[in-house]
């Protein structure tokens, strides 16, 4: 663990109990200045609770939270120098947009002329200057979202907290606002902690992702690490859409190195494991689960030419999903549904048996017992 001087925010041994029920089971997490940390996980995993403890809205049962080396465990939310954007936006319905944005400053005794100047500049950044006199009920969802962000921005805090801010927007607006948040982070360089259950938001926004399940951290890392080297089967399955294909097999040794035998409906198939994934301590006869992303399973022409380990498996096409930019092909291998991502113009028809090119350099192996990556 690095010293607190290097980490902007540090959480160690954080526990949160409600009676006998433990919601957060010992979280250790660090974030550097200017970082964008996304807490992601299925509903009920404790990600929002974790955010609320950082905000000071929920007391913690154990552990410490510090910002810039200062412990903030027992500080009131208003003393933590944070701003928060809530899922429901939590705009005060009785105040105008300007009143909403200024409320925090008003509570802190900022004089009116200064407040007005700050409102004006934030409204300009977010293009809501024409809405300042309206009440929240007169705004559209996207506009409310902007006002909520304006309220956070105007305070110029050390740390921004976002609690599923885009989940109430329609699909198109969600993408637009996602880009806007990313741009905002790039231009302001603020440190942000962001909660979402949407793994695409997590991948696109984060500089660091923390995947949670049942109150425990599953993996913390850059989006690329999380995506390419998932720590366990849960992370592999949760991150990515369509999700990673997980196929059971048995390791065997040959003169060339390790191979993986997978049982098919008729016979079996033997895949040569590249040294990139077989370097770890594998043993002959060991049961493993092969994890491979849909985009690493293609038609033969679409396979990555730089890869030294492309293996071909024949399978019967069950379903073809043309998605415009790609075509998803669904088949069954080793008793499991497998999704392959082929080029849009790949010629495949349901019912045909076609070759699937597995780029095993992009594959990972998991231990079925511990669920961990090998």
């Amino acid at each position, binding site marked *: 663990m690095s010293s607190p001087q290097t980490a902007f925010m540090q959480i160690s041994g954080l526990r949160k109990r409600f009676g006998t029920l433990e919601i957060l089971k010992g979280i250790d997490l660090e974030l550097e200045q200017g970082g964008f940390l996304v807490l992601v996980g299925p509903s009920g995993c404790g990600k929002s609770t974790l955010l609320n403890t950082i905000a000071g809205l929920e007391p913690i049962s154990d552990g410490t939270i510090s910002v810039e080396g200062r412990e903030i465990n027992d500080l009131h939310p208003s003393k933590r120098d944070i701003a928060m954007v809530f899922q429901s936006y939590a705009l005060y319905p*009785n105040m105008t947009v300007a009143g909403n944005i200024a409320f925090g400053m008003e509570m802190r005794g900022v004089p009116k002329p200064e407040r007005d100047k700050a409102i004006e500049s934030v409204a300009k950044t977010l293009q809501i200057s024409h809405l300042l006199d309206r009440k929240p009920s007169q705004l559209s969802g996207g506009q409310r979202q902007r006002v909520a962000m304006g309220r956070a921005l105007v305070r110029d805090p050390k740390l921004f907290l976002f609690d599923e801010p885009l989940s109430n927007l329609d699909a198109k607006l969600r993408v637009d606002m996602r880009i806007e948040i990313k741009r905002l982070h790039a231009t302001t360089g603020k440190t942000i902690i962001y909660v979402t259950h949407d793994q695409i938001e997590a991948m696109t926004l984060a500089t660091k992702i923390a995947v949670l399940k049942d109150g425990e951290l599953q993996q913390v890392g850059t989006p690329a690490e999380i995506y390419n080297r998932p720590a366990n089967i849960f992370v592999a399955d949760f991150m990515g859409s369509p999700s990673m294909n997980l196929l059971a097999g048995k390791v065997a040794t040959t003169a060339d190195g390790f191979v993986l035998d997978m049982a098919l409906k008729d016979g079996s198939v033997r895949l040569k494991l590249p040294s990139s994934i077989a370097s770890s301590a594998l043993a002959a006869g060991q049961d493993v689960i092969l994890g491979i992303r849909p985009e690493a399973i293609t038609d033969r022409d679409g396979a990555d030419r730089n890869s030294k380990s492309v293996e071909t498996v024949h399978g019967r096409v069950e379903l073809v999903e043309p998605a415009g930019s790609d075509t998803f092909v669904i088949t069954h291998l080793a008793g499991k549904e497998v999704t392959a991502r082929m080029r849009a113009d790949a010629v495949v028809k349901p019912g045909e048996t076609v070759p699937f090119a597995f780029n095993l350099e992009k594959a990972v192996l998991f231990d079925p017992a511990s669920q961990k990556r090998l």
Partner: protein
Amino acid sequence: MSAAPSQNVAIRTGRVTRAVIYTLLILAAAYYLLPFYIMLVNSLKPLAEIQQGRMMALPLEWTLDPWRSAWSTAQIGVSPTGLRPYFMNSFLMVVPAVVISTALGALNGYVLTKWRFRGDGYVFGLMLFACFIPFQIAVIPMAAVLGWLGLSGTIAGLVLVHAVYGLGFTTLFFRNFYAAFPTELVRSAMVDGAGFFRIFTRILLPLSTPIIIVTVIWQFTNVWNDFLFGASFSDFDSFPMTVALNNLVNSSTGVKEYNVHFAGAILAALPTLIVYIVSGRYFVRGLMAGAVKG
């Protein structure tokens, strides 16, 4: 446009039903309005006309004398003061009692929903008890408490009694209203730096108009119309209107002045009537508001 034909159908097919409904409604209204009509016409006649047995007829000679008498000169107990001083007593009792019980009820509702603490459910349950205890049970202990506080026979004592007994209901109203109030607003205000009271006064209270109106109407009518506590805990100079009205009707200086009694009774009922007429439509709306607001 699309709704219009179906509406017409409803009117056409429902003509008989409608007639029945209206007849029943008119009969019910007449049944309730008849006593008021009798009170009103007889309060505007000289006593002689009533004594002739013409209760239902309109006055032959219209007069406001019974009203003047009831208001300022009629014999109440031993003094000929009319109802005026007691009307004032009632106001001096009702206004603080309503304000205090509403304000405390709002605060209780706020704490019980947004500042939860261990055992808050039991506290609320005990407060609800106040809504179900018959007031008669509390008369003697309350008299002892008032004596102990030195508030026996004073308006301040009555204010205390009504504020305390109103608290169960006002807390119930506000708690249920605030239970549906989005907690994220409170949290957002906390992050913004607002404290316990500023969250209450700046965020919750401005959004509580419907439930405040419901509570004020409820408390105003209950406290104004109360007779038991007024008769039990007040003195000659602190009688509320209800007790004074009773004394007006019961003090006899020979003849029963029915016209004065009727005028007095209407005067006694007037404030609650006005409160209902002015804000009654909010009453139903307010009771519904907590249920629909998400």
